[in-house]
């Protein structure tokens, strides 16, 4: 699918390709490669020739030759100088392309934390994979909840660090569609060392062939209730939202305590007395993990405040109960007022207005967006105003309009 029109030798060096950066980056890479090959053959070839021709042997003596030659030395100074400046120029112009985000780019918020990726779409939906349409510039606004991470999609030749307290941006335009199953997507790696599970902090980029499929994905991503059974929805969240990295289902302790065992019993905490492991404790641990840290574990869990909606937390709790309580079943709680409770602040209005096209879950989304802004807004002191969530949220209105 992706190897159709690649240059010769590409399969030896690059694995796959799928963005508009590929021609720029690859052509410069091959230019440097052939230039380097030429100089390597020249230097090592001459050296091998000298090694054979001037080897010490009976009857052979060193000959005196000039100890320096300004013309020769100037030549082999000036030619490399000119060549490296050509390389610099090509690299710089390609770099400007990589860093100049088109105005009409569709914006996705990228939240990196130990050790998973979350991609938040303008409508408030969050997916563990990056889903994008083909042929449309995508702007990524990167943030980190804890330590440095770096988003790296080899097929796009794109990489950018996620720095806590700062919004870095990068963009790309996919040129190759992948299957709509995440397993068919392009590899997405964390490239900046971030601790124990750095090597499993991976995800995929799903590229849709047409915008209609992408819109269908956008509609599906926002509602955990599309799955009738909360337990199954919770299991999906467990897999997708990073719980699986630290919490096992079989009672074995990993970075965090296992989800199995201990339900309904009192657990020893690092500080303070024992705490009953119930719905409230799980909810608090998801939203404010540092409040009560289980004895024997390090306080490393990031907060999911603003990243998980009530329904999602409900589903996760249901899932945890299901693996502790034999035959546990539950239904989604009845939906409360559509708008009501959540629309307290200005942000809700703003988001509500923006999401008119997919009206219906507006209340849910407003809640999620507002909460996430609240959580993020507290930290960044250096975020440039042009990249703050408020302004970024505006962009998708136009772009999603374009696409429809």
């Amino acid at each position, binding site marked *: 699918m992706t190897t159709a029109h690649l240059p010769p030798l590409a399969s*030896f060096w690059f694995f796959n390709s799928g963005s508009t950066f590929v021609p720029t980056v690859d052509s410069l890479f091959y230019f440097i490669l052939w230039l380097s090959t030429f100089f390597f053959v020249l230097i090592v070839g001459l050296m091998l020739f000298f090694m054979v021709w001037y080897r010490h042997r009976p009857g052979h003596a060193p000959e*005196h030759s000039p*100890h320096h030659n300004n013309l020769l030395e100037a030549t082999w100074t000036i030619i490399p100088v000119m060549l490296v400046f050509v*390389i*610099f120029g090509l690299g*710089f112009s390609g770099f400007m392309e990589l860093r100049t985000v088109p105005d009409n780019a569709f914006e996705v918020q990228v939240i990196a934390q130990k050790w998973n990726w979350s991609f938040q779409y303008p409508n408030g939906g969050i997916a563990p994979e990056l889903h994008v349409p083909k042929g449309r510039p995508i702007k990524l606004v990167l943030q980190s909840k804890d330590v440095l991470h770096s988003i790296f999609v080899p097929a796009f030749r794109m*990489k950018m660090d996620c720095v806590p307290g700062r919004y870095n941006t990068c963009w790309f335009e996919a040129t190759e569609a992948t299957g709509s199953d995440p397993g068919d997507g392009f590899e997405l*790696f964390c*490239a900046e060392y971030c601790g124990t599970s750095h090597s499993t902090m991976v995800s995929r980029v799903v590229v849709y062939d047409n915008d209609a499929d992408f819109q269908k994905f956008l509609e599906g991503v926002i509602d955990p209730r599309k799955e009738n059974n909360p337990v199954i929805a919770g299991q999906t969240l467990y*897999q997708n939202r990073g719980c699986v990295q630290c919490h096992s289902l079989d009672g074995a302790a990993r970075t965090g305590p296992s989800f199995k065992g201990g339900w309904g019993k009192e657990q020893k905490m690092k500080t303070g007395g024992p705490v009953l492991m119930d719905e409230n404790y799980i909810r608090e641990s998801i939203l404010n993990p540092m409040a009560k840290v289980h004895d024997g574990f390090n306080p490393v869990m990031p907060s999911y405040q603003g990243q998980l909606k009530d329904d999602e937390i409900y589903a996760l709790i249901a899932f945890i109960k299901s693996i502790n309580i034999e035959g546990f079943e539950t239904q989604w709680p009845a939906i409360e007022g559509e708008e009501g409770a959540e629309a307290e602040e200005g942000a809700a209005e703003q988001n509500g207005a923006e999401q008119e096209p997919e009206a219906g879950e507006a209340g849910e989304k407003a809640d999620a967006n507002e909460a996430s802004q609240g959580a993020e807004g507290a930290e960044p002191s250096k975020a440039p105003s042009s990249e703050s969530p408020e302004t970024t949220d505006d962009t998708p209105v136009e772009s999603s309009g374009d696409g429809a």
Partner: protein
Amino acid sequence: MIAHTSKPLVSGETGRRVEIPEGPSYLTGGGLMSWAFTLDHKRIGVMYLCGILGFFLIGGLLAILIRLELWNPAADLLAFGQGADATARAEIAKNNFNQVFTLHGAIMVFLFIIPSIPAALGNFVVPIMVGAKDVAFPRLNLASFHLYFVGACFFIAALLTTGLDTGWTFYTPYSVTTTGPVVLATMGVFILGFSSIFTGLNFIVTINTMRPRGMTWFRMPLFLWSIYATSIIQVLATPVLAITLLLLMTERMLGIGIFDSARGGDPVLFQHFFWFYSHPAVYIMILPAMGVISEVIPTFSRKHIFGYRFIAYSSIAIALIGFLVWGHHMFTSGQSALATAIFSFLTFAVAIPSAIKVFNWLATMYKGSIHFNTPMCYAISFMALFTIGGLTGLPLGALATDIHLHDTYFVVAHFHYVMMGGTLISFLAALFYWWPKLFGRMYNERFGQLSAIIVFIGFNLTFFTQFILGVKGMPRRYASYEGSDAFPVTPELLETFTTLHRISTVGALILGAGLFIAAGTLIASLWYGRKAPANPWGAATLEWKCCSPPTQQNFEVNPIMGPPYVYDDIKYDPAIDGYYEVVPDRTTKPMQDPV
């Protein structure tokens, strides 16, 4: 003096042979305390040598562990059989892997490469090369070694308590939040930094003030130029590292918030501070290596070095421009595009002096008479590997390609080609070159040459595959490369990764075998080697004009200071399988100044 010599200074046997009187070796006499508190630069050099070789062994074994873990895509081996099931084992293995690569990097950088040539061999060679009895400040020199010892103890403590998992770069905020012994390790680096500053300061003063009459700047051996340039960097850059690490410690212990965005700090600031030292530190590692090559190639080609001034100036140019390129480690960190472009430009500027040196070494071999003794085999190996290391710096300096290659195995391969293919190979060349002078014994040439060839093959197998891995997108510091349960890596990519990693692991084992042969060759020489002549290679620099091993005073009689790269007066004597110097018979043939 450096210019053209059209004919030999001496024709035939018209000169007088210079006899070098033997004396008691600096190695003999005195007990343990006479070593631990010696002021003799040679003994300090030998103690440094033992220390760095010990740490090289530890760092190398850690490297083998890294390669073995990567034999299989899953993180498994480093669990050492602990853990109830596969996931628990993977968890243990991942943590162990992170600690192993951290200690491998930190030990190799701070305890091996930085002190390798300057502190160990430089300490031994520099004073003798300038014809002096000792360095300018012998007590400071001893203090430098003692600090190295103390700093190393901190590292051993970090190694034994385990848990240091920040990578050798100590990037914030990870290093502030992790539970490992970060303060212990950074304290060790802090102390080692002072050791490095003392050594650098000593060499600057020694080279400035203790050269003999007649040894002008441009009559110095090029090794001294490179050591001088290195020392400038050590003295100017290392304090910045010390301050950075102090800030890191206060951040960890007191939470001052300078690197914490929640308190108005900036985690990227740490990277600026860190690389302001650590990029020049790369030149602390490679410049002395270049100096060694500038000695070995002319000696074994029996030819005057070509373009002396260009090589000397390029050492200084590298030292100075090297201070201005630190930002090229941060092209993806979010620093401004303008800063990024400037750093890229300067990075290319610093590539030029290195290229000049390679061409000059090549031209030195032209019309020579090349002897393939072990040091020369390593020097030739260096030329090939350093060329690859230098050329693969180009796609990393170029911005568009660096974005893709940054933090992948391409970078790992690049710096191993420079640091290991460059500095380590050159260190081995230097060790084999000066070994007869250090210990007064000749080693077995055949085994030495064999080790050079095996190391060359093993090295390329290990690291060339990593260039390909990196371009295909294999990120650095990954304990496993199969992806996560939810997102496994594409089967074809996994197969490619596995194949390349396995070739690399096999290469590492071959490389290790080569290094053990080299070590065995040298150690065996101490018992079985024949006694070394004063000048086994026919070199013209002063350290070959005293007996092997030198006496405590270095020179029993004042040596004759001649041009460092003119070999006409140095004759081979089959009886001792070494060389002797001839003083031209001035009564019959007046000495010509070869201009």
